[in-house]
């Protein structure tokens, strides 16, 4: 269970990205964060694994305080939390396999991983995860030789190497062709349903959010303006979240 308690984030330039945000995520939930760009979705996700340090508030994961964890504890928490990014964040010049293996770094000792000495078990696990996302034949290609959709699948395979109990996804389909969005989202759905991994995913297309979310949290100017059932977001709520000028487009 993830508990976010009164979290605020003020950046050095004075921008208040999050303002007193609280919510909880039960195990096995598929939570989608929606909101306009700049509403604080990315900051919220990054506060959870402390890629960004929150200014105020506490975040607990399974009762353990993430916000006050020392570096060693933090690394141990991080390795249970996978993360997938909008721009994939692969090392473009490294091979697909090496990118996927890097997901295992939190579990390997420093010397052998720095020297690139991976156990046969880890390599096998990497190939397995690549097979799950359907690109095992690209293992030895350079990451930047792959298409956008394929790169995002490498990103998912890398996060799956952590055997996470919580998966964070920051706009995972925003830089993909809309036609590919569903195929990528389905991997998260599968992970959620077959392995019981909790998923927190930010999306800006409401249609996708409705289809995959078990619950939706909407952020506006750093504050939670909606927290509940995806199907209960009507026109009035939609305008509250996105502003009066917004019009919802169906995905297809």
């Amino acid at each position, binding site marked *: 269970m993830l508990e976010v308690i009164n979290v605020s984030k003020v950046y050095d330039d004075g921008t208040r990205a999050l303002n007193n945000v609280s919510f909880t995520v039960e195990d096995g939930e598929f939570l989608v964060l929606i909101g306009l760009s700049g509403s604080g979705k990315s900051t919220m996700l990054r506060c959870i*694994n402390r*890629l960004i340090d929150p200014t105020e508030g506490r975040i607990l994961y399974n009762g353990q305080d993430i916000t006050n964890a020392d*570096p060693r504890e933090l*690394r*141990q*928490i*991080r*390795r*249970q*939390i*996978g*993360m997938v*990014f909008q*721009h*994939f*964040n*692969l*090392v*473009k*010049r*490294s091979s697909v396999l*090496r990118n996927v293996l*890097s*997901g*295992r*770094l*939190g*579990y390997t000792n*420093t010397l052998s*991983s*720095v020297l690139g000495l991976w156990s046969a078990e880890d390599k096998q696990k990497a190939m397995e995860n690549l097979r799950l996302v359907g690109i095992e034949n690209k293992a030895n290609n350079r990451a930047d030789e792959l298409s956008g959709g394929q790169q995002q699948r490498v*990103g998912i395979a*890398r*996060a799956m*190497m*952590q055997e996470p109990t919580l998966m*964070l996804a920051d706009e995972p389909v925003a830089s993909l062709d809309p036609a590919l969005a569903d195929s990528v989202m389905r991997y998260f759905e599968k992970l959620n349903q077959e392995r019981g991994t909790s998923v927190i995913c930010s999306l800006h297309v409401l249609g996708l959010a409705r289809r995959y979310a078990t619950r939706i949290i909407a952020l506006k100017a750093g504050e939670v303006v909606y927290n509940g059932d995806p199907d209960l977001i009507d026109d009035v709520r939609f305008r509250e979240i996105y502003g009066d000028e917004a019009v919802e487009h169906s995905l297809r």
Partner: protein
Amino acid sequence: MSNPAALAALFSLILPGAGQIRSGHRSRGLIILVITLIIVGLVLWLNLSPASWLGLAVAWAANVWDAWLIAGGQRPKTALLALALALPIYVIGWQVTNIDLVRFFTSANRAAPVVRGLLRPDFFAREIDYGIAGNDFYLPCPAPADAESSAAPNGATVTISQNCGLPGETVQLTGQGFDPNQTLQLWWTNPVGAESRVRIFGEFEPFQVDENGGFQTEITVPNQRYEADNPRAHSLELRYIASQSSYQVTENARLVASRIGETIAQALMATFVGALLAMPFSLFGARNLMAGNPALKVLYYISRTVMNVLRSVEPLIMAIVFVVWVGLGPFAGVLALTMHTIAALGKLYSESIESIDVGPIEAIRATGANQFQIIAYGVLPQVIPPWIAFTVFRWDINVRMSTIIGFVGGGGIGFLLAQWIRLSEYRAAGAAIWAIAVVVIILDLISARVRERLI
């Protein structure tokens, strides 16, 4: 004068730009005035030939015409005006740089020995055994009774019209018994044993025996030192090729090979040491690594300044300093190249650190990796390939530079080349130049390949 156009033209005729200023185009007029003043100043100061006065006249006329057009309300031809103003500047530039196209073409023949040397580089030569037919010649007269004449191995003999004389006298040479149509060289050996070739009609060219094996020619006794009351025996010899070996690598070619090796090694050492030292500099000089802490900022500026200063000093100039410091030879060259390499590579390295993609680092941090693992998996894979590419490219540049650095005493092939050029040994110089070209081309290809694969 009520016509405003004519009045403005008159103003500009007296003072360039005045007409334009009067018509309200102040900056245009001022620019014309300043440019014209600069041209007049240059022409007077450099004391140039009438051609530049002509260029100035054209510019002046264009300015008057411009004033006329503007005051008359017509569209000014700014491009033409600019061309006219530029014309005297080109004329001055032409004269200052001593451009002389006539000399370029009429003196082309002076380049012939150099070009010939380049076309016949001294890589291979035959070893030649000469047959010699000779006569003693006494400077000055009289010759003793036992003056010698020797017959060549093939029985050829040479007779000489007089066996003593003074420099500048003309002597008849008659030969017989040579092989028909053989080529001969005429050599003069003085009493100390110094040999020199004798010119026939001012030419060095060997001369031919006729089809009967004989020849007749006249030569001028060369200008040799003598003592008036002490006649001494000089030797006048005719040499022909008795036998020659197959082509063999010459001494100069061996020298070129060893010095080219030295050059490549110089570049290698300079690149290696320079690259090693450039790494810390590049870390300190990378803005994204040094941000935040003010102490790091200071380090950043120091490192940047050192690199910029080092880079602005040409390695050739550094080599002059190091030649004085550690003496002539390859070590001075290595030091100069190393200094330059640190600066050049340091900048390139730090730029590639600065242009690093932070996304992968974020992603790897999110997996729970520690700092070492983040560097090994997120940073190094992004910077190592460009670093290698830059380093190989630098080696390539360093080889080119170390060929030149020898000219100021920094060792390597340039040292040899400079000597040979000064001694007018153009065939040997040709060999050196060919060797440099070949090595540079090969390295260029290799480094292009490596860069292609890495970037």
